[in-house]
């Protein structure tokens, strides 16, 4: 999000068309995301440190069309941010299953298509549904059909537009994540770009294609507005590859050639015409227009944070007490728990809860955050417990309290006071970490920002609004932390005489 702001602020300097640069450099750099997977661009199984994919091969051929000795260079980026990075000039074009859309065509130059895709509905083997149209009738039990899609993809848009009130769209960060969740039985269907459905069909034997493909769109290469010569050269190159049959050979190699692709050579004489400039809303109006979505996403962030943090604090306290006062064998076990949880990324933990244990997204999200943070809270509590002078425990025991009573009545209440400031700090961090929950399909504030900024291109406005919402949520916590720290300082954590 900040990146968006920065990139927008550092407008690219005026300069000559990138085509000259590419030729001088001898390399055409294209932005793509390997995480999107096959058949587009993915780690080459035969040589895992390089990339394979039909787009990679197309770009290799296209680069040569730009001049003798020009090579194509793959540049890794995050899929939904590829165009922003294009603005920054780190690479020359974007190629990664990016469909032609009027909104993008307003801000970028597109070539003619190198692929004509359709969307394929996939469901568990033996599903009674036979076509997308079947989803427009209510599910027998009255609940909506759930359709898993890749966030901000053409399938996402299509599923929303074609929703007859009988479907619920669930957004995933990866195409294969959506397929896995459907194969797991967590959702009813997934709607996928045809090439991905074809390519991964074998890897998900529990899934089958449902009905004929729907919709239609074009994968194109995007260049900056300032580089018309580069775009024209690439566009002509695609035309030549299509006419010579070379394009067909590459697509066949990846098993994604079909009759529709005949149109690549016959139906296009150049770039797809840009639409008349629409009088669509821009800027701050958009923020107001989508305000409700930002608010809902902020509520998801709040729900995750306030659901997870109390749990994390409770688990953390229990772990810390167990490690310090529990029976012998429990101590190393809890120590191992802390190290395991702290030593592995939150995202992996969420994957386990969601895809392996198949928990509901909210349960997985809250449990994942709570477990992850519990390890950090446990260490904070441990320090807090150790900071309580020994004499406090001895005085409690000397008064006839049991150990557990002494912990409950004397030690823990003092430790809690000591840890309030660091725990509040962690709470603020947790607010922002909730963004990882987009991997379990929860659209919280950061994800919603990303979706809206991408689909509307009002990057700066949405980034500002999102940052403001985060601040509004975390400032009260900061104030509380600072206030409690001051109070604690006044109360004197140690008191008396140690």
């Amino acid at each position: 999000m900040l990146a968006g702001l920065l990139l927008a602020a550092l407008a690219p300097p005026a300069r000559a068309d990138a085509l000259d640069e590419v030729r001088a450099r001898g390399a055409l750099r294209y932005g793509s995301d390997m995480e999107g997977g096959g058949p587009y661009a993915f780690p080459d199984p035969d040589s895992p440190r390089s990339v394979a994919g039909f787009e990679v091969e197309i770009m290799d051929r296209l680069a040569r069309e730009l001049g003798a000795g020009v090579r194509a260079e793959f540049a890794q980026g995050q899929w939904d941010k590829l165009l922003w990075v294009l603005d920054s000039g780190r690479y020359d074009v974007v190629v990664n299953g990016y469909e032609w859309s009027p909104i993008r065509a307003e801000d970028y130059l597109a070539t003619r298509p190198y692929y004509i895709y359709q969307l394929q509905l996939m469901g568990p083997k033996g599903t009674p549904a036979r076509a997308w149209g079947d989803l427009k009738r209510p599910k027998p039990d009255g609940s909506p059909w759930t359709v898993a899609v890749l966030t901000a993809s053409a399938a996402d848009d299509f599923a929303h537009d074609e929703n007859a009130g009988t479907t619920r769209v669930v957004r995933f960060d990866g195409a294969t994540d959506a397929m896995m969740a459907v194969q797991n039985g967590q959702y009813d269907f997934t709607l996928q770009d045809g090439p991905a459905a074809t390519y991964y069909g074998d890897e998900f034997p529990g899934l089958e294609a449902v009905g004929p493909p729907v919709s239609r769109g074009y994968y194109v290469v995007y260049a900056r507005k300032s580089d018309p010569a580069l775009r024209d050269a690439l566009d002509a190159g695609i035309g030549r590859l299509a006419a010579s049959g070379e394009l067909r050979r590459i697509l066949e190699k990846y098993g994604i050639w079909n009759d529709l692709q005949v149109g690549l050579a016959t139906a296009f004489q150049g770039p797809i015409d840009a639409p008349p400039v629409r009088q669509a809303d821009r800027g701050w109006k958009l923020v107001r227009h989508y305000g409700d979505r930002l608010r809902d996403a902020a509520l998801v962030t709040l729900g995750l944070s306030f659901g997870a943090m109390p749990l994390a604090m409770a688990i953390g306290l229990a772990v810390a007490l167990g490690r310090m006062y529990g029976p012998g064998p429990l101590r190393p076990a809890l120590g191992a728990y802390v190290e395991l949880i702290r030593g592995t990324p939150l995202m992996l933990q969420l994957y386990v809860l969601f895809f392996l244990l198949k928990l509901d997204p909210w349960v997985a999200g809250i449990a994942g955050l709570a477990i992850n943070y519990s390890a950090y809270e446990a260490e904070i509590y441990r320090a807090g417990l150790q900071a309580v002078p020994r004499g406090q425990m001895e005085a409690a025991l000397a008064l006839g309290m049991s150990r557990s009573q002494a912990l409950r009545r004397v030690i823990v209440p003092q430790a809690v006071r000591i840890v309030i400031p660091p725990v509040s700090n962690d709470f603020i961090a947790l607010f922002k970490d909730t963004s990882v929950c987009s991997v379990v399909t929860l659209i919280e504030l950061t994800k919603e920002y990303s979706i809206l900024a991408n689909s509307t291109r009002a990057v700066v406005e949405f980034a500002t609004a999102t940052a403001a919402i985060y601040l509004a949520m975390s400032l009260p916590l900061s104030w509380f932390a600072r206030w409690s720290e001051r109070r604690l300082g006044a109360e004197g954590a140690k008191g008396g005489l140690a």
Partner: protein
Amino acid sequence: MIEVEGLVKRFGAVEVLRGVDLSVGRGEVACLIGPSGSGKSTFLRCLNGLERFQGGRVAIGDAVLDAGQSPREHAKAARRACRRMGMVFQGFNLFVHQTVLQNVIEAPVHVLGMGRDEAVERARGLLDRVGMLHRLDARPRELSGGQQQRVAIARALAMGPEVMLFDEPTSALDPKMTAEVLGVMTDLARDGQTMIVVTHAMGFARKVATIVHVFGEGLIVESGPPDRIFDAPAHDATRSLLSEVQAA
């Protein structure tokens, strides 16, 4: 009422108590004196079970601590012993998150299960006795050391202990506060409270003790009425201890 037989305590290889025998009768005020490091604190902590020990036994009524007990048995016996003994520490150890009143009613309410009103009533009486009734709602950090120690005495008394253990209760205090605290202890002794007092305040020992035990290197080297110990010490260790105190 307290019988200690052959108490042996080791920290690792170091033998800190080397077979201490001691008995304290009802109403007695036993003062323990001895050089620093001779094992006086450790001895008191063994009496109420804060420390386990490796040999001997301690009996106070039906609470019996024995070197042969399992950790679990020891913890149970220690709790019984703690019900019968109150302890006052050199560092006061008031619960810093509670007010004066809360400190004093904490154990009666949560250990004895006494009703809150009754506990408050008793706490007021005890705090009056130690001259702290006017600071009921103060936090420990707002009190002087002498005031904290007097509250700590009231807190221990609130459990109605048969015996009060004092571990150098005035060592952290200046002379004026020392006098306050010793005054309270003198009153207690006069009221017939059984007490075991580890102290360097020889004036107090001479005036209040019924018997003085001299510790040296993990043993009681000499015992007797205060006048005899202070005026005609029989043991070298006692003589050098007394000359040190006089020099100080």
